[in-house]
């Protein structure tokens, strides 16, 4: 055996035990960030080292893995992580949401509703929702201990004072199970309602910041808001130009250097399946002509 070999799913067993213990605590205390001894991974911070460590610790030989980056199965980040687990764990992979048992995601929740047999693993850059308001870890930890979240509401209020509405569009803070305020990772706020009462277990891993947290299935997750400024998910007022979907999250894609652009589903698997079913874009008479 001259070629380098890895333990199953790359991490050594002691590391997996440590991460697994952190995951169990995270599930028992929904929304609380459990510190863990994050390892250096063979990819840079910011590429999903937290998500990769969580996935490596839960993955078994019978799992089918799907990896998405901003909804897409075929971007560099998603392809690299998928290849990493094919190489180190030999697991089957898929791009179809309903065929996956473990889905690692960067910044999206799939459009297809998840089931009880699935686990969604988020890659998290900055797990602490209060970090930009209070830089000291000792202070944010105490604020969580005392449920002292007034500062977060002040931040949302300042949004309203400046812009007339809550201008936070992604990483929109949520309250989990009526206790902890949590950063849902930089998912668009369009996805926030899907965090609540999900049939699937949701795990969050932040490698650089060394935190793991979780939302168990069927847990109430509330996006923070005010009575007179209720939370509203945002989506571009358009239909997908490939599949015609009017209820999916859309990416704006620049198509040339003359102002040409198109809106397409951010979830590539969802869009492909709709097109396979025969859905197509029907141009609207009133729609502005692009370019």
């Amino acid at each position, binding site marked *: 055996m001259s070629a380098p070999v890895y333990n199953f799913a790359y991490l050594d067993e002691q590391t997996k035990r440590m991460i697994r213990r952190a995951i169990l*605590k995270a599930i028992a205390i929904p929304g609380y960030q459990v510190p863990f001894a994050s390892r250096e991974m063979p990819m840079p911070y910011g590429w999903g080292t937290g998500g990769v460590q969580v996935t490596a610790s839960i993955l078994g030989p019978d799992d089918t893995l799907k990896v998405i980056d901003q909804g897409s199965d075929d971007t560099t980040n998603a392809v690299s992580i998928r290849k990493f687990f094919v190489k180190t764990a030999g697991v089957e992979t898929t791009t179809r949401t309903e065929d996956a048992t473990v889905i690692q995601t960067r910044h999206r929740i799939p459009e297809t509703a998840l089931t009880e047999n699935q686990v969604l693993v988020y890659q998290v850059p900055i797990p602490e929702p209060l970090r930009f308001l209070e830089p000291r870890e000792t202070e944010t930890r105490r604020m969580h201990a005392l449920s002292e979240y007034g500062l977060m509401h002040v931040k949302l209020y300042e949004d309203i004072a400046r812009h007339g509405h809550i201008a936070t569009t992604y990483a929109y803070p949520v309250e989990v199970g009526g206790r902890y305020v949590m950063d849902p990772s930089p998912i668009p706020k369009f996805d926030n309602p899907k965090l609540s009462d999900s049939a699937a277990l949701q795990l969050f891993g932040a490698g650089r910041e060394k935190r793991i947290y979780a939302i168990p299935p069927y847990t109430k997750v509330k996006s923070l808001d005010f009575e007179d400024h209720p939370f509203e998910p945002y989506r571009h007022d358009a239909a997908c130009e490939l599949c015609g979907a009017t209820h999916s999250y859309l990416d704006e894609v620049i198509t040339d250097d003359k102002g040409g652009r198109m809106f397409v589903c951010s979830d590539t698997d969802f869009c492909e399946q709709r097109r396979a079913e025969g859905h197509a874009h029907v141009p609207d008479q009133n729609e502005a002509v692009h370019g």
Partner: protein
Amino acid sequence: MNNLSPFAAHPREGGGPEVKKQDLDSRFRGNERSMDPAYESQAAFRALMDCTARPGELRKLRGVSAPAPFAPATAALIQSLADYETPLWLDAAFAAEKKVADWIRFHCGAPIVREPGEAAFALIADAAAMPPLAQFSQGTAEYPDRSTTLLVQIESFAGTPFTLRGPGIKASREFAASPLPADFAVRMKENRALFPRGVDLVLVAGNDIAALPRSVAVEAR
């Protein structure tokens, strides 16, 4: 233990998904003396993860045979989760058997502590006589994760009926377990009141497990 290395399933070693699944099935018959460190501990952990995410739901583990009073599933969970970082506390029934401590030291290298408050995991064989939950580490307000997880061995998931509510449970779930202390629901209520502090429980009956994390509300029916 067996002559298949964890790498047998590795694509570069000529393994593949089909070969791998067949290997896993043919290698294990009943409860083993020890476990494959990579695959078996993953299976035990994953079952416990599912149970913790869905309090009161039962999962069957492929157990590990260990000295009495170890239940096969308790031994499997301890082997997959405990190591030199996790002090263990043993109740009187576990502590009375010298072989238990030897088995733990040999297989996990976990220190055994006298004070329940210092333990990461507590092993309880005599469920009806389990000590008050407050004797174990409850974590702190800042670090509620620094608490004890209790592995409580019972006879069966039948008998005293409870209703469970909370995260992981759609509406409510019927649950039963025995033997347990007569005031078990009261103890769990006090534990729930401490949230986010408190202890997490894993109940074990033979090869079956169920979890009652601190987030669950337990009501006697």
